Protein backbone atom coordinates (compact mmCIF):
# COMPACT_ATOMS: atom_id res chain seq x y z
CA UNK A 1 0.00 0.00 0.00
CA UNK A 2 1.46 3.37 -1.03
CA UNK A 3 1.51 6.45 1.10
CA UNK A 4 -1.32 8.02 -0.89
CA UNK A 5 -3.51 4.99 -0.25
CA UNK A 6 -3.29 5.71 3.44
CA UNK A 7 -4.97 9.05 2.93
CA UNK A 8 -7.38 7.81 0.34
CA UNK A 9 -8.43 4.78 2.35
CA UNK A 10 -12.13 4.37 1.75
CA UNK A 11 -14.28 4.09 4.82
CA UNK A 12 -16.78 1.27 4.84
CA UNK A 13 -19.79 3.55 4.42
CA UNK A 14 -18.54 4.62 1.00
CA UNK A 15 -17.64 1.06 0.10
CA UNK A 16 -21.22 0.06 0.90
CA UNK A 17 -22.62 2.91 -1.18
CA UNK A 18 -20.50 2.06 -4.21
CA UNK A 19 -21.28 -1.64 -4.00
CA UNK A 20 -24.99 -0.98 -3.67
CA UNK A 21 -25.10 1.42 -6.59
CA UNK A 22 -23.67 -1.20 -8.90
CA UNK A 23 -25.74 -3.99 -7.44
CA UNK A 24 -29.01 -2.15 -7.79
CA UNK A 25 -28.37 -1.26 -11.40
CA UNK A 26 -28.13 -4.94 -12.29
CA UNK A 27 -31.02 -5.79 -9.93
CA UNK A 28 -33.22 -3.22 -11.62
CA UNK A 29 -32.17 -4.39 -15.07
CA UNK A 30 -33.54 -7.74 -13.94
CA UNK A 31 -30.48 -9.45 -15.37
CA UNK A 32 -29.82 -12.87 -13.87
CA UNK A 33 -26.29 -14.24 -13.32
CA UNK A 34 -27.18 -17.03 -15.76
CA UNK A 35 -27.97 -14.52 -18.46
CA UNK A 36 -24.77 -12.60 -17.75
CA UNK A 37 -22.85 -15.86 -18.11
CA UNK A 38 -24.51 -16.51 -21.47
CA UNK A 39 -23.70 -13.00 -22.68
CA UNK A 40 -20.13 -13.48 -21.54
CA UNK A 41 -19.75 -16.76 -23.41
CA UNK A 42 -21.19 -15.30 -26.59
CA UNK A 43 -18.83 -12.33 -26.39
CA UNK A 44 -15.86 -14.68 -26.00
CA UNK A 45 -16.98 -16.60 -29.07
CA UNK A 46 -17.38 -13.52 -31.22
CA UNK A 47 -14.19 -11.72 -30.21
CA UNK A 48 -12.14 -14.92 -30.42
CA UNK A 49 -12.77 -14.94 -34.16
CA UNK A 50 -10.63 -11.85 -34.46
CA UNK A 51 -8.09 -11.91 -31.66
CA UNK A 52 -6.72 -14.06 -28.90
CA UNK A 53 -8.37 -13.00 -25.62
CA UNK A 54 -7.95 -14.00 -22.01
CA UNK A 55 -11.31 -15.66 -21.42
CA UNK A 56 -10.68 -16.24 -17.70
CA UNK A 57 -9.98 -12.59 -16.98
CA UNK A 58 -12.92 -11.34 -18.99
CA UNK A 59 -15.26 -9.21 -16.92
CA UNK A 60 -18.79 -8.36 -17.97
CA UNK A 61 -21.11 -6.32 -15.79
CA UNK A 62 -23.96 -3.89 -15.90
CA UNK A 63 -23.11 -0.37 -14.77
CA UNK A 64 -24.44 3.10 -15.42
CA UNK A 65 -23.36 5.69 -17.90
CA UNK A 66 -24.25 9.30 -18.62
CA UNK A 67 -26.89 9.55 -21.28
CA UNK A 68 -26.74 12.25 -23.96
CA UNK A 69 -30.39 11.98 -24.84
CA UNK A 70 -32.02 12.59 -21.47
CA UNK A 71 -29.99 14.28 -18.77
CA UNK A 72 -29.35 11.36 -16.49
CA UNK A 73 -27.84 7.94 -16.36
CA UNK A 74 -28.83 4.82 -18.23
CA UNK A 75 -27.76 1.23 -17.61
CA UNK A 76 -24.75 0.16 -19.66
CA UNK A 77 -23.17 -3.19 -20.37
CA UNK A 78 -19.51 -2.92 -19.50
CA UNK A 79 -17.08 -5.51 -20.77
CA UNK A 80 -13.38 -5.61 -19.94
CA UNK A 81 -11.71 -8.02 -22.33
CA UNK A 82 -7.96 -8.48 -21.91
CA UNK A 83 -6.27 -9.28 -25.22
CA UNK A 84 -3.50 -11.85 -25.22
CA UNK A 85 -2.44 -11.55 -28.82
CA UNK A 86 -3.38 -9.07 -31.53
CA UNK A 87 -1.59 -10.78 -34.43
CA UNK A 88 -4.55 -12.98 -35.21
CA UNK A 89 -5.93 -10.97 -38.13
CA UNK A 90 -9.55 -11.02 -39.20
CA UNK A 91 -10.21 -13.24 -42.16
CA UNK A 92 -12.14 -11.98 -45.11
CA UNK A 93 -14.89 -14.37 -45.88
Amino acid at each position, binding site marked *: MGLMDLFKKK*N*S*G*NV*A*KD*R*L*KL*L*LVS*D*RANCSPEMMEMIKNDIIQVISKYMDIDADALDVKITETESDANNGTVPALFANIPIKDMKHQPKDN
Partner: protein
Amino acid sequence: MSEVIVITSGKGGVGKTTTTANVGTGLAQLNKKVVMIDTDIGLRNLDVVMGLENRIVYNLVDVIEGKCRLKQALIKDKKYQDLCLLPSAQTRDKDAVTPEQMVELINELREEFDYILLDCPAGIEQGFKNAIAGADRALVVTTPEVSAIRDADRIVGLLEANEMKRIDLVVNRLRMDMVKRGDMMNVNDVCDILAVNLIGAVPDDEQIVVSTNQGEPLVGSNCLAGQAYANICRRIMGEEVPFLNLEEKQGVFSKLKEMFKK
Protein backbone atom coordinates in the same frame (compact mmCIF):
# COMPACT_ATOMS: atom_id res chain seq x y z
CA MET B 1 -61.24 11.10 3.53
CA SER B 2 -59.40 8.24 5.05
CA GLU B 3 -55.96 7.13 4.01
CA VAL B 4 -54.63 3.58 3.93
CA ILE B 5 -50.88 3.26 4.53
CA VAL B 6 -48.90 0.05 4.23
CA ILE B 7 -45.63 -0.17 6.20
CA THR B 8 -43.28 -2.51 4.39
CA SER B 9 -39.57 -3.24 3.95
CA GLY B 10 -38.82 -6.55 2.27
CA LYS B 11 -36.17 -7.49 4.78
CA GLY B 12 -37.23 -8.56 8.25
CA GLY B 13 -36.09 -6.94 11.46
CA VAL B 14 -35.63 -3.39 10.17
CA GLY B 15 -38.46 -1.93 12.25
CA LYS B 16 -41.76 -2.26 10.37
CA THR B 17 -43.75 -3.18 13.45
CA THR B 18 -42.06 -0.57 15.63
CA THR B 19 -42.75 2.04 12.96
CA THR B 20 -46.39 0.96 12.64
CA ALA B 21 -46.91 1.12 16.40
CA ASN B 22 -45.29 4.54 16.73
CA VAL B 23 -46.89 6.11 13.66
CA GLY B 24 -50.28 4.73 14.67
CA THR B 25 -49.95 6.06 18.20
CA GLY B 26 -48.53 9.36 16.94
CA LEU B 27 -51.46 9.94 14.59
CA ALA B 28 -53.84 9.16 17.46
CA GLN B 29 -51.99 11.77 19.55
CA LEU B 30 -52.84 14.23 16.78
CA ASN B 31 -56.52 13.38 17.35
CA LYS B 32 -56.96 11.15 14.34
CA LYS B 33 -58.99 7.97 14.33
CA VAL B 34 -56.53 5.22 13.58
CA VAL B 35 -56.70 1.46 13.12
CA MET B 36 -53.58 -0.68 12.81
CA ILE B 37 -53.86 -4.06 11.11
CA ASP B 38 -51.23 -6.73 11.70
CA THR B 39 -51.17 -8.58 8.38
CA ASP B 40 -48.40 -10.99 9.33
CA ILE B 41 -50.53 -14.10 9.65
CA GLY B 42 -48.83 -16.82 11.69
CA LEU B 43 -46.27 -14.46 13.25
CA ARG B 44 -48.20 -11.76 15.03
CA ASN B 45 -46.26 -9.22 17.05
CA LEU B 46 -47.83 -5.78 16.69
CA ASP B 47 -50.10 -6.68 19.63
CA VAL B 48 -47.15 -7.28 21.93
CA VAL B 49 -45.32 -4.12 20.83
CA MET B 50 -48.52 -2.19 21.63
CA GLY B 51 -48.90 -4.02 24.95
CA LEU B 52 -52.33 -5.36 23.96
CA GLU B 53 -51.49 -9.06 23.78
CA ASN B 54 -53.77 -9.99 26.67
CA ARG B 55 -56.88 -8.49 25.16
CA ILE B 56 -57.10 -10.49 21.95
CA VAL B 57 -60.29 -12.47 21.47
CA TYR B 58 -60.83 -12.48 17.71
CA ASN B 59 -58.40 -11.80 14.89
CA LEU B 60 -58.11 -10.78 11.24
CA VAL B 61 -58.85 -14.26 9.87
CA ASP B 62 -61.91 -14.60 12.13
CA VAL B 63 -63.29 -11.36 10.66
CA ILE B 64 -62.61 -12.42 7.09
CA GLU B 65 -64.15 -15.83 7.63
CA GLY B 66 -67.20 -14.25 9.20
CA LYS B 67 -66.68 -15.86 12.61
CA CYS B 68 -67.19 -12.50 14.29
CA ARG B 69 -68.16 -8.95 13.44
CA LEU B 70 -65.41 -6.49 12.60
CA LYS B 71 -66.19 -4.41 15.71
CA GLN B 72 -65.69 -7.44 17.95
CA ALA B 73 -62.16 -8.03 16.72
CA LEU B 74 -60.97 -4.43 17.07
CA ILE B 75 -58.99 -3.88 20.28
CA LYS B 76 -58.99 -0.41 21.79
CA ASP B 77 -55.64 1.01 22.84
CA LYS B 78 -54.91 1.45 26.54
CA LYS B 79 -54.24 5.17 26.30
CA TYR B 80 -55.91 6.50 23.19
CA GLN B 81 -59.65 6.11 22.67
CA ASP B 82 -59.42 6.56 18.91
CA LEU B 83 -56.66 4.01 18.34
CA CYS B 84 -57.52 0.41 17.50
CA LEU B 85 -55.66 -2.76 16.64
CA LEU B 86 -56.83 -5.62 14.47
CA PRO B 87 -54.49 -8.47 15.43
CA SER B 88 -53.39 -11.18 13.06
CA ALA B 89 -54.07 -14.89 13.57
CA GLN B 90 -51.31 -16.81 15.25
CA THR B 91 -52.25 -20.34 14.23
CA ARG B 92 -53.20 -19.88 10.61
CA ASP B 93 -51.48 -19.76 7.25
CA LYS B 94 -50.90 -16.76 4.98
CA ASP B 95 -53.18 -18.33 2.38
CA ALA B 96 -56.14 -17.91 4.75
CA VAL B 97 -56.62 -14.41 3.30
CA THR B 98 -56.76 -13.12 -0.29
CA PRO B 99 -55.98 -9.59 -1.56
CA GLU B 100 -59.65 -9.17 -2.56
CA GLN B 101 -60.79 -9.94 0.98
CA MET B 102 -58.30 -7.41 2.35
CA VAL B 103 -59.63 -4.70 0.03
CA GLU B 104 -63.16 -5.45 1.17
CA LEU B 105 -62.17 -5.30 4.84
CA ILE B 106 -60.29 -2.03 4.35
CA ASN B 107 -63.23 -0.44 2.56
CA GLU B 108 -65.37 -1.26 5.56
CA LEU B 109 -62.81 0.35 7.88
CA ARG B 110 -62.53 3.47 5.72
CA GLU B 111 -65.99 4.51 6.86
CA GLU B 112 -64.91 4.83 10.44
CA PHE B 113 -61.21 5.69 10.54
CA ASP B 114 -59.00 8.52 9.28
CA TYR B 115 -55.93 6.34 8.95
CA ILE B 116 -55.66 2.62 8.36
CA LEU B 117 -52.11 1.31 8.88
CA LEU B 118 -51.11 -2.08 7.54
CA ASP B 119 -48.11 -3.74 9.16
CA CYS B 120 -46.74 -5.86 6.31
CA PRO B 121 -44.84 -9.13 6.82
CA ALA B 122 -41.27 -9.49 5.58
CA GLY B 123 -40.80 -11.00 2.15
CA ILE B 124 -42.58 -10.49 -1.16
CA GLU B 125 -44.98 -13.42 -1.14
CA GLN B 126 -48.68 -13.79 -0.39
CA GLY B 127 -48.55 -11.79 2.86
CA PHE B 128 -46.97 -8.84 1.06
CA LYS B 129 -49.53 -9.00 -1.73
CA ASN B 130 -52.36 -9.06 0.82
CA ALA B 131 -50.94 -6.08 2.67
CA ILE B 132 -50.43 -3.79 -0.31
CA ALA B 133 -53.68 -4.68 -2.08
CA GLY B 134 -55.87 -2.05 -0.44
CA ALA B 135 -53.25 0.58 0.33
CA ASP B 136 -53.24 4.17 -0.99
CA ARG B 137 -49.65 4.84 -0.05
CA ALA B 138 -46.62 3.07 1.34
CA LEU B 139 -43.94 3.74 3.92
CA VAL B 140 -40.84 1.74 3.01
CA VAL B 141 -38.68 1.17 6.08
CA THR B 142 -34.98 0.47 5.70
CA THR B 143 -31.79 0.65 7.74
CA PRO B 144 -28.49 1.99 6.36
CA GLU B 145 -27.24 -1.52 5.59
CA VAL B 146 -26.60 -3.06 2.19
CA SER B 147 -29.00 -5.99 2.65
CA ALA B 148 -31.91 -3.86 3.87
CA ILE B 149 -31.40 -1.25 1.12
CA ARG B 150 -31.23 -3.87 -1.60
CA ASP B 151 -34.51 -5.39 -0.41
CA ALA B 152 -36.08 -1.95 -0.06
CA ASP B 153 -35.19 -1.22 -3.68
CA ARG B 154 -36.88 -4.42 -4.76
CA ILE B 155 -39.96 -3.51 -2.73
CA VAL B 156 -40.09 -0.05 -4.29
CA GLY B 157 -39.97 -1.68 -7.72
CA LEU B 158 -42.84 -4.01 -6.82
CA LEU B 159 -44.90 -1.18 -5.35
CA GLU B 160 -44.41 0.87 -8.50
CA ALA B 161 -45.37 -2.12 -10.63
CA ASN B 162 -48.56 -2.34 -8.53
CA GLU B 163 -49.22 1.35 -9.15
CA MET B 164 -48.87 2.49 -5.55
CA LYS B 165 -49.81 6.16 -5.64
CA ARG B 166 -47.26 7.38 -3.18
CA ILE B 167 -44.11 5.84 -1.73
CA ASP B 168 -42.11 7.41 1.11
CA LEU B 169 -38.95 6.25 2.79
CA VAL B 170 -38.17 5.85 6.50
CA VAL B 171 -34.49 5.37 7.27
CA ASN B 172 -34.39 3.61 10.61
CA ARG B 173 -31.64 2.81 13.11
CA LEU B 174 -29.16 5.45 12.12
CA ARG B 175 -26.10 5.43 14.32
CA MET B 176 -24.72 8.91 14.15
CA ASP B 177 -21.41 7.95 15.75
CA MET B 178 -20.81 5.46 12.93
CA VAL B 179 -22.02 7.87 10.24
CA LYS B 180 -19.58 10.47 11.57
CA ARG B 181 -16.72 7.99 11.33
CA GLY B 182 -17.78 7.14 7.81
CA ASP B 183 -18.59 3.58 8.75
CA MET B 184 -22.29 3.89 8.04
CA MET B 185 -24.13 5.37 5.08
CA ASN B 186 -25.87 8.61 5.95
CA VAL B 187 -29.49 9.48 5.16
CA ASN B 188 -28.57 11.30 1.95
CA ASP B 189 -26.61 8.30 0.68
CA VAL B 190 -29.60 6.04 1.25
CA CYS B 191 -32.01 8.47 -0.44
CA ASP B 192 -29.63 8.88 -3.39
CA ILE B 193 -29.42 5.16 -3.91
CA LEU B 194 -33.13 4.44 -3.59
CA ALA B 195 -34.42 7.63 -5.24
CA VAL B 196 -37.52 7.72 -3.02
CA ASN B 197 -38.93 10.69 -1.11
CA LEU B 198 -37.67 10.73 2.50
CA ILE B 199 -40.37 11.08 5.14
CA GLY B 200 -38.34 10.32 8.24
CA ALA B 201 -34.95 9.47 9.68
CA VAL B 202 -35.00 7.64 13.00
CA PRO B 203 -31.84 7.23 15.08
CA ASP B 204 -30.92 3.96 16.71
CA ASP B 205 -32.14 4.60 20.22
CA GLU B 206 -31.94 2.40 23.30
CA GLN B 207 -35.29 3.81 24.36
CA ILE B 208 -36.93 1.86 21.51
CA VAL B 209 -35.96 -1.39 23.24
CA VAL B 210 -37.17 -0.06 26.58
CA SER B 211 -40.50 1.03 25.13
CA THR B 212 -40.99 -2.29 23.35
CA ASN B 213 -40.20 -4.10 26.60
CA GLN B 214 -42.95 -2.12 28.26
CA GLY B 215 -45.41 -2.35 25.40
CA GLU B 216 -45.77 1.42 25.12
CA PRO B 217 -44.76 3.21 21.92
CA LEU B 218 -42.40 6.12 22.62
CA VAL B 219 -43.64 8.51 19.93
CA GLY B 220 -43.80 12.07 21.19
CA SER B 221 -41.53 11.40 24.16
CA ASN B 222 -38.48 13.49 24.75
CA CYS B 223 -35.90 11.17 23.19
CA LEU B 224 -34.68 11.64 19.61
CA ALA B 225 -36.48 8.56 18.25
CA GLY B 226 -39.72 9.72 19.87
CA GLN B 227 -39.42 13.11 18.21
CA ALA B 228 -38.46 11.59 14.88
CA TYR B 229 -41.61 9.44 14.89
CA ALA B 230 -43.78 12.40 15.89
CA ASN B 231 -42.37 14.35 12.95
CA ILE B 232 -43.11 11.47 10.58
CA CYS B 233 -46.76 11.59 11.69
CA ARG B 234 -46.99 15.30 11.00
CA ARG B 235 -45.42 14.82 7.57
CA ILE B 236 -47.90 12.03 6.81
CA MET B 237 -50.65 14.55 7.48
CA GLY B 238 -49.08 16.88 4.94
CA GLU B 239 -47.28 19.28 7.22
CA GLU B 240 -43.79 20.43 6.27
CA VAL B 241 -41.53 19.64 9.18
CA PRO B 242 -37.77 20.23 9.08
CA PHE B 243 -35.66 17.15 9.70
CA LEU B 244 -34.13 16.72 13.13
CA ASN B 245 -30.43 17.23 13.57
CA LEU B 246 -29.66 13.79 14.91
CA GLU B 247 -26.25 14.79 16.19
CA GLU B 248 -27.55 17.72 18.17
CA LYS B 249 -28.66 16.06 21.33
CA GLN B 250 -25.60 14.22 22.41
CA GLY B 251 -25.13 14.03 26.12
CA VAL B 252 -22.12 15.55 27.86
CA PHE B 253 -20.87 12.06 28.54
CA SER B 254 -20.68 10.86 24.96
CA LYS B 255 -19.03 14.12 23.95
CA LEU B 256 -16.38 13.65 26.61
CA LYS B 257 -15.91 10.05 25.55
CA GLU B 258 -15.40 11.17 21.98
CA MET B 259 -12.79 13.71 23.05
CA PHE B 260 -10.82 11.04 24.85
CA LYS B 261 -11.02 8.67 21.91
CA LYS B 262 -9.16 11.20 19.81
